[in-house]
């Protein structure tokens, strides 16, 4: 039986652990610490928790100041607000100054559900990826989110950590190693590579299982670090399979798919499809319903995989 847990819970647990192990870790929130699960840290370490009220720009600037003074600040809000309202602060105060600020966005992607389009971050990976020195991490499950949070504290420089609101299947094990910047191979296969991040890694695994029933051997790569990309793993996947599908809970413009295409187009071009949101906003609904309506389901990945396999065969 698969267990389910939101990635934001994994972050909350990781932050709580950092409270114990890293006295320099502090947390800030734009009055969304309950939603982002930073509230667990707040209860345990009230002196090291700061609410700036509903003022995300000031929160990022305050976090930058704390980093100048030697702290490791985790600044939390919804993924949309902590990256959208603050792009200029993240650019000049955080990235340009190469400060050790960790930007934590919960409620990333469509699986926010009922709150609807304004709360569903679908473009922020593109925004964050374009910022020099910014590292971009999208954990695939709560266990990985916890490991990523802890790894962030030991990883100098700005990091954006994207989390989800809804329970997601636990597909990794506590003992699995985690390293920022290193993609993990979840399933071996040489016919087609399914490359995902976040919630879509689970869907890619499910798609691979469906493809296996038709004797198609799909490789599944968990690219939890969207920047810097694990170029070697991507090039190996393209070289050894000759067909690539990316999958992300994000617009297909400038996110994981774009990032992978930038690498492969310049190193080992192969037929490629991008599963993601098609240049549009989200809407209200049940998360599962929305993932279906916006074509982010395992069967959408299966369809894309068959497309690239056809292209690959035509090219032979």
């Amino acid at each position: 039986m698969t267990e389910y847990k939101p990635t934001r819970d994994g972050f909350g647990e990781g932050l709580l652990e950092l409270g114990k192990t890293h006295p320099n870790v502090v947390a800030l929130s734009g009055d969304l610490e309950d939603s982002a699960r930073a509230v667990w840290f707040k209860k345990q370490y009230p002196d090291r928790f700061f609410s700036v009220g509903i003022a995300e720009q000031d929160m990022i600037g305050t976090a930058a100041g704390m980093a100048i003074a030697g702290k490791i600040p985790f600044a939390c809000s919804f993924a949309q607000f902590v990256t959208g309202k603050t792009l200029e602060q993240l650019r000049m105060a955080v990235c340009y100054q190469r400060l050790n600020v960790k930007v934590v966005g919960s409620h990333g992607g469509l699986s926010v559900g009922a709150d609807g389009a304004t709360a569903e971050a679908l473009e922020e990976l593109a925004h964050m990826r374009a910022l020099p020195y910014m590292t971009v991490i999208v954990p695939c499950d709560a266990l990985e989110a916890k490991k990523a949070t802890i790894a962030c504290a030991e990883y100098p420089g700005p990091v954006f950590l994207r989390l989800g609101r809804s329970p997601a299947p636990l597909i990794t094990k506590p003992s699995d190693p985690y390293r920022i910047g290193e993609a993990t191979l979840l399933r071996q296969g040489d016919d087609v590579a399914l490359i995902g991040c976040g919630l879509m890694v689970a869907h890619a695994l499910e798609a691979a299982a469906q493809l296996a029933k038709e004797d198609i051997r799909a490789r599944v790569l968990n690219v939890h670090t969207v920047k810097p990309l694990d170029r070697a793993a991507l090039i190996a996947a393209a070289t050894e399979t000759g067909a690539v599908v990316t999958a992300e809970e994000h617009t297909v413009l400038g996110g994981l798919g774009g990032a992978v295409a930038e690498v492969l187009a310049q190193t080992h071009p192969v037929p490629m499809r991008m599963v993601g949101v098609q240049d549009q906003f989200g809407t209200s609904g049940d998360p599962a319903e929305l993932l279906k309506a916006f074509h982010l389901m395992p069967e959408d990945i299966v369809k894309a995989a068959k497309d690239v396999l056809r292209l690959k065969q035509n090219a032979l």
Partner: protein
Amino acid sequence: MTTPDTPRTPDAPAWRRLAVELRQTILRMIAKAGSGHPGGSLSMVELLIGLYWYALRHDPKRPDWPERDLFLLSKGHGCPALYAVLAAQGYFPKEELMTLRRYPTRLQGHPERGSVPGVEIAAGSLGQGLSLANGIALADRLDGRRRRIYCLMGDGEIQEGQVWEAAMTSAHHRLEAVCAIIDANQLQQNGPVREIQNIEPLAEKWRSFGWHTIEIDGHDLAQVIRAYDEAKTITGQPQAIVARTVKGKGVSFMELNPAWHGVAPKPDELEKALNELQATLS
């Protein structure tokens, strides 16, 4: 020049001379660069003298001294004044001033954190410095570190909403280490602040946000240092010094003329300006 161990006493005649020299240096730098912001650089000269030659605990020989007071220039376009002051204090060689804005230089048109010793933060995208000051003060409080953090902003700059978010944060957390200085030089790029987007009454605004507010003539060095002295005595509250200044101060044809927000003087204009400034000393 100023070290943490030597007492700092105001020296009126020397400081008047210093103000003229700094203004001349600023104008030479901008003229040589062929671009830059003379108006807002000239308006903040006395405010910087009062800090670097009097109020600020700092040591140019130890720019990374952890106990130093911090000066954060938030109105980044005024950096020619900061560079001139830092060079005069010995943070880096004066000859480098004439590389302003020209590749490859450490003196960009808007400051880059740490590009030269003494430049504490990046600025240029307005409205951000006060948030950084608060973050430093909050971290210092956790660490039991006692130092003052000064943040200089322009009056046009404080139209930025983030400034008021930060102003609430400083007051909410009673950050007595934070001192905001408003260089209220009356103009912004396209005209008088009052006409473009009025931010008056300035002192009342800061007071109502919970700040101990001191209003002064920002070109009167005696008032400037009295304000810094008074600010240091305040506990449990951040302090705002509303400094009434004149954009382009010291050069008749630049004073209160919006055309001199962001253009460099041509050679004949530079000569006229330098002579005018020199004449004030005799």
